[in-house]
């Protein structure tokens, strides 16, 4: 198992190198000039040339790529933002906790509410209750989150006045963004849990458990649910990984200075270092989350665990199992 984890961590290195080269190349070809944005439209041609020289933007592609990679992997630095002049890495670090709070609580809320709803719908399949909740969740899944965010602001901030509409001065500022972010997640998780549970509930081993005399509660939560968890974990892992890279729309609507807002600003300003830094950060967090998801699989499903342990010596030494499958 530890060998598997080590392998996965080592595999992240080529992924990050690949992403670095790719994003650098893409930014190289993107039209627009950061210098003109920094200096404004009134700058003279000579001023522009001087700043380009200073930033090293007049070098050929290969040399710029080389110095970018050198700076990245030898000095562990993303460089400074052209626009703010601050260190991109430090900026990402200060923004990270905000995005983490938003992503973590959204995903927890989606699971804590969505999974029980889905189970309830699956165990009462085709009842009125099931139909209604699936219809509502259909609306939830298809509702754009910026619209939902605005509606929540309208209701809770403007009409009722119980929650702040934007900013990040305390936890209450995060309640509306988390809600706006999580409602779609709740609906999605509930629908997926329902369909996944329905498939498992029909399996013979669930009948077997009933025939053994296992209580209905344990049949659902001990026999059926763990077997239905794989797609749910996959979905939530993907959502969480994606949201750690910033929820651009939500952060913009609620003026939360998170990673997503930073990335969008940087792209608008053609702030190469900031864009490259943000994208690399996103690739890194996504890889880490996916590794965690794969490790969770191993705990849920012995078949997947066996694959990870595949050729470990310990297993063969103990001489257990390995029947002719």
């Amino acid at each position, binding site marked *: 198992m530890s060998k598997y984890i080590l392998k996965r961590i080592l595999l992240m290195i080529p992924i990050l190198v690949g992403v670095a080269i790719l994003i650098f190349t893409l930014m190289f070809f993107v039209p627009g000039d950061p210098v003109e944005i920094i200096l404004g439209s009134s700058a003279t041609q000579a001023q522009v040339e001087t700043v380009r020289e200073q930033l090293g933007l007049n070098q050929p592609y290969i040399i710029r790529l080389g110095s970018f990679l050198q700076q990245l992997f030898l000095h562990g630095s993303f460089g400074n933002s052209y626009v703010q002049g601050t260190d991109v890495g430090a900026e990402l670090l200060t923004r990270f906790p905000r995005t983490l709070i938003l992503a973590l609580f959204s995903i927890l809320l989606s699971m804590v509410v969505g999974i029980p709803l889905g189970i309830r719908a699956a165990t009462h399949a085709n009842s009125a209750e099931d139909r209604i909740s699936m219809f509502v969740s259909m609306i939830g899944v298809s509702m754009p989150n910026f619209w939902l965010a605005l509606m929540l602001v309208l209701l809770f901030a403007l009409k009722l006045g119980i929650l702040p509409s934007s900013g990040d001065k305390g936890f209450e500022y995060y309640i509306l963004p988390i809600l706006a972010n999580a409602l779609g997640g709740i609906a999605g998780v509930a629908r997926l849990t329902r369909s996944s549970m329905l498939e498992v509930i029909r399996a013979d081993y669930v*009948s*077997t458990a009933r*025939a*053994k*005399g296992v209580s209905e509660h344990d049949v659902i939560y001990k026999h059926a649910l763990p077997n239905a968890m794989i797609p749910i974990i996959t979905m939530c892992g993907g959502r969480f990984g994606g949201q750690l890279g910033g929820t651009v729309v939500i952060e913009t609507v609620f003026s939360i200075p998170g990673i997503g807002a930073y990335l969008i600003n940087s792209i608008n300003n053609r702030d190469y270092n900031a864009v490259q830094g943000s994208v690399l950060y996103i690739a890194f967090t996504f890889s880490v989350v996916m590794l965690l998801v794969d490790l969770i699989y191993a705990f849920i499903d*012995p*078949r997947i665990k066996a694959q990870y342990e595949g050729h470990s010596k310990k297993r063969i030494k103990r*001489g257990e*199992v390995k029947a002719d*499958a």
Partner: protein
Amino acid sequence: MSALLEVKHLKKYFSTHKGVVHAVDDVTFSLDEGKTMGVVGESGCGKSTLGRTIIHLQEPTEGQIIFQGEDVTHLKRKDLDRLRENMQIVFQDPYSSLNPRLSVRDTIAEPLILSHKFKGAALEKEVNRLMELVGIEKRLHNAYPHEMDGGRRQRVGIGRALALNPKFIVCDEPVSALDVSIQAQVLNLLMDLQQENKLTYMFVTHDLSVVRHISDSICVMYLGQLVETCSTEELFKNQLHPYSKALLSAIPSVDIHNPTKRIVIKGEIVSPIDPKPGCRFAARCPYACEACKEPQKLEMISTGHFVSCCRVKEINQLS
């Protein structure tokens, strides 16, 4: 000897949006202790539903199930636990009937733990005894279902069914998913266990040679209805219902001088959704007449031989 299990006018209907499916319709039979009753019929005729309803995996729609002289048709949770200790089921597909997350030990131990009869070392000893009883090697103690072949999995399924020492086991096509060499092993295991533990089996299958090998008596079902029931010997020698005749003629003969004459039934199976009263085989029966449209009664032709056909005497030239 009194009957261990009696089933009277058992019905199991499923309502779907197309109508009511009559999966099991008015089935009556009794089964003595230590005997094996085969239930045969084509796919979808309600054999499995009958078995699942008897052991209370589904609520019966109507009728009575009498087990050891006690009416167990509608039981509350607590009594159901007691009943489950005496009635078990072995499923058809050993690939889907074992929880992929439970090891062999956990699968077999679960009913023992739930019964509160075994704990600690006694529990482990009992698990080992059961594994040995059904012939699973000790080294597979911690193996998961995906690490075993079909035969071993089915042995685990049988082991866990036997865990609480039941009197009656429904075998729902337990060998049809296995290849032939393993079929024989599992069948022999079931028969050995029956002799040692005085088990009573209801053996659901569509494999006529299997049923002949293992059963003492046979029920032939067609679209939810019981059409004929008698001892195995009698059925293979002297089947009376037109459907049984057609069904048994489908067994290939190994004697080239005396090939069986296959009775080919024409027409389509009628839908089990909201069927008309009367014999359901009538639409395909070469002997069908007006009287077949009336509901049929199970009639005793000779001792222990019941047939549900109004023209049975005429067809078979019985007085």
